[in-house]
C-alpha cells in the first residue's frame, strides 16, 4: 500500500512537473510568436559565445563586444523601420550546452547565427543552422564548407601567412612547432606544413602540451636538441604564456612566434618584463597608433575607442571577429533584407568586398577566410605591442 501510494505520488508529481515544463515551453513559444506578430520590426541575430569555462579567456571580450554593439545599434535607432536585437547565450565551453542553446536560438526565431568561440563547438552547432537554412557566420576556423556557412575568422593558413613572411624576411629555414592538444591547437600545423613546404621551410620538431598544464620545460628541452632557428607556438592562454616564460627561463636566443590566440592582454601580462624575442600574430587593432593612415585605420580606431570608453580595456582580435559578423548582418538588413534566405542571398552575392575589423572579406569569392590584411606579426616593447613592418 505504502509503496503504491509512493509510486502514485511520484507519478503525479512528475506529471505535474512535466506539464508545467511543457506549459512553460508553450508560453515561451507563444510569447515569441506574439512578439514577432506584434512587433514585426524586430530582427534577431543569435550568438553563442564562451562567456565561462576554459575558453572564456577568448570569449570574454566577445561578450563585451556584443553588449557594446547592441548599445550602438539601440542608439542608432531602427534601420528601415527594423530594430536589430542580438541574442547572446553562454555555452560554458561545453559543446552539448552549445547545441541546446542553438536550438533555443532557433526557437526564438533568429535569422542569422554567429557562433562560436572555439572550433569544435562551431563544428558541433553548424549542422543545425544548415538544416534550418539560416546563414551561419562561423566564429572559429572550421574544415567544413557549406552554402550557408560564412567564416568571420582567419583560416589557419591565413594566420600562418604573416609568420611565413616573417620567417622569410629573417632568412629562417628550420623551425620547431609546439601546439596545445586542444581544438584550437591542432588546427595550425596542417596549414603551416603546406605553407612551409611551398617556402622551403623545414619543421624539425613537433611537440604537444596541455593548455592548462603548469610547465612545458620538457617539450622545450626536447625541441632544443633539434637546433631550430625559431619556435612557433599554437596555443591559447594560460599555456601560451607559461611556455613563453619557460622559453625565457631556458635561455633560448631564437625568436618564438605565437598564434592569434595569444594576442591578448592576458598574454602580455603573463610575459611582463621578460618578453624580448617573443612575437605574436595579432590584430592591427593592438598597434593602431603605429599604423600608416588608411581607411582601415579609421575603422579600427572607431571601434577601439568605443570599446575602450565602454570597458576601460583594449579589444582583441576575437572581439573583432564578432564585430565583423554583426556588421555583415547589419549591412544585409540595411539593404532591406529581413528573412534568413534574403540575408543569405545578400551575403553570398551582393555584399562584395567588405572592409571589416578583422580584415577584408569577400564572401562571393571566399567563404573560408578574410584576407590577411588585418593581422601582422607583432613584437613586444615596453610591455605593449609593437608593429614591425
Amino acid at each position, binding site marked *: 500500500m505504502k509503496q503504491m501510494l509512493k509510486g502514485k505520488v511520484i507519478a503525479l508529481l512528475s506529471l505535474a512537473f512535466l506539464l508545467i515544463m511543457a506549459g512553460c515551453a508553450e508560453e515561451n513559444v507563444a510569447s515569441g510568436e506574439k512578439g514577432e506578430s506584434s512587433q514585426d520590426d524586430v530582427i534577431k541575430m543569435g550568438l553563442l559565445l564562451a562567456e565561462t569555462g576554459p575558453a572564456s579567456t577568448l570569449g570574454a571580450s566577445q561578450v563585451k563586444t556584443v553588449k557594446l554593439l547592441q548599445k550602438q545599434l539601440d542608439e542608432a535607432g531602427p534601420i528601415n523601420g527594423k530594430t536589430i536585437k542580438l541574442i547572446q547565450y553562454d555555452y560554458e565551453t561545453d559543446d552539448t550546452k552549445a547545441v541546446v542553446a542553438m536550438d533555443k536560438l532557433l526557437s526564438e526565431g533568429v535569422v542569422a547565427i554567429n557562433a562560436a568561440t572555439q572550433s569544435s563547438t562551431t563544428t558541433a552547432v553548424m549542422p543545425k543552422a544548415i538544416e534550418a537554412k539560416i546563414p551561419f557566420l562561423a566564429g572559429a576556423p572550421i574544415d567544413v564548407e557549406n552554402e550557408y556557412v560564412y567564416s568571420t575568422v582567419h583560416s589557419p593558413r591565413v594566420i600562418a601567412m604573416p609568420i611565413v613572411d616573417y620567417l622569410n624576411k629573417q632568412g629562417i629555414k628550420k623551425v620547431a612547432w609546439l601546439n596545445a*592538444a586542444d581544438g584550437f591547437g591542432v588546427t595550425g600545423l596542417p596549414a603551416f606544413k603546406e605553407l612551409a613546404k611551398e617556402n622551403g621551410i623545414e619543421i624539425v620538431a613537433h611537440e604537444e602540451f596541455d593548455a592548462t598544464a603548469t*610547465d612545458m620545460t620538457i617539450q622545450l628541452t626536447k625541441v632544443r636538441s633539434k637546433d631550430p632557428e625559431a619556435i612557433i607556438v599554437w596555443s591559447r592562454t594560460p599555456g601560451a604564456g607559461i611556455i613563453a616564460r619557460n622559453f625565457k627561463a631556458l635561455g633560448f636566443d631564437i625568436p618564438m612566434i605565437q598564434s592569434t590566440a595569444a594576442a591578448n592582454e592576458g598574454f602580455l601580462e603573463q610575459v*611582463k618584463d621578460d618578453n624580448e624575442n617573443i612575437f605574436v600574430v595579432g590584430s592591427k587593432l593592438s598597434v593602431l597608433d603605429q599604423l600608416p593612415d588608411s581607411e582601415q585605420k579609421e575603422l579600427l580606431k572607431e571601434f577601439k575607442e568605443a570599446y575602450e570608453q565602454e570597458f576601460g580595456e583594449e579589444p582583441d582580435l576575437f572581439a573583432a571577429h564578432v564585430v565583423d559578423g554583426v556588421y555583415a548582418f547589419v549591412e544585409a538588413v540595411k539593404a532591406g533584407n529581413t528573412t534568413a534566405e534574403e540575408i543569405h542571398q545578400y551575403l553570398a552575392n551582393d555584399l562584395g568586398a567588405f572592409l571589416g575589423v578583422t580584415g577584408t572579406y569577400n564572401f562571393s569569392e571566399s567563404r573560408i577566410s578574410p584576407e590577411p590584411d588585418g593581422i601582422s606579426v607583432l613584437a613586444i616593447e615596453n610591455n605593449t605591442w609593437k608593429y614591425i613592418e
Partner: protein
Amino acid sequence: MDLFLQYLITGLTVGSIYALLAVGFVTIYNVTGVLNLAQGEFAMIGALSCVTLVNLGIPILGAIPLAILITAIIGFGVERLAIYPARNATPIILVVITLGVSIFLKGMGLIIWGSSPKSLPPIVESRSIQFFGAVINSQSIWIFILLFVLLILLYWFFDKTFIGSALRASEKNPHAASLMGINTSTMSTIAFTIAAALGAIAGVMIAPLTDATYEMGFFIGIKGFVAMIFGGMHSVPGAVAGGLLLGVIEAFSGGYISTYYTDALAFGFLLLVLFFRPQGLFMRATGERV
C-alpha cells in the same frame, strides 16, 4: 646527460607544486576523514587574492600573509557552513558536497577575478640558475626550502603540541577522542582552516611559476591527491615524497616516451599503485580497520 638532468630538475620543480597541495590534503584527511576536492580552490583563492593585494600596492611580503589569512577564513567558513552540517553523512555525500563547494568557489573566483591569467611576482626577483647545463628556476628553490620548513613545522605541530595530538586523535577514533574531552567538531574546523592556509601557501608559491587563473584549482588539486595516495594517505612526509615522485614520473615519461601521453602515464602509474600497493609506496602494510 644534460637532458637527463634537465628532466630531473623540471620533474622535481613540478613535483614540489604537487607536494605542497598534497600536504593540505593529508591534513584534512587525517583529522576529518573527508576528502576535500575543494583543496585546489584554496590554492586558487590564495594566489589570486595575493595578486589583487599586490596590485593594490601592498608589498609582496605583506600581501602573502594577508592572502593566507583570507583563505584560512574562507576555509573556516566552508567547514562551518558546508561540512559541519553534514558531518554524519556518508563519504559519498561528503565528496559531492566538497565538489559543490569547489564549483561554488570556482564561480566566485571567476566573478571576482575574471578569466584571464594573472601573474604574481616572486618573493625575490632573480634570474634562473645554470646548473651543469640544466636550468633551475630560482622560485623552485624557494618552494623546496618552504616544503622543508613545512615538514618540520607540521611534524612539530602534530607530534609535539597538545592541539596537534588532539587533531590526530579525532581521526584515529572520534568516539574515544570525544570521551577524552576533545571537541571533535572544533578539531574539524581547525583542520579545515589549517588546510586552507596550506592551500593558500601553495597557491602563492606556485603562482610565479604557473600563473593564477580561476580554473587552476581542479587540475592541481587532482595531482595533489595523487601525490597523497603515493604517500599512503596519512603521512605528511610520504605525501611530499609522493608529490616529487609524481613530478619526476611526468617529466621522464614526457622526455623519454611521449609528451602526448604524460598525464595518461602518470595516472596509469597511479592505478598500478592503487592495485598493488594501496597502502602507499613508502609505507608498510598495516591492518585495515573494518
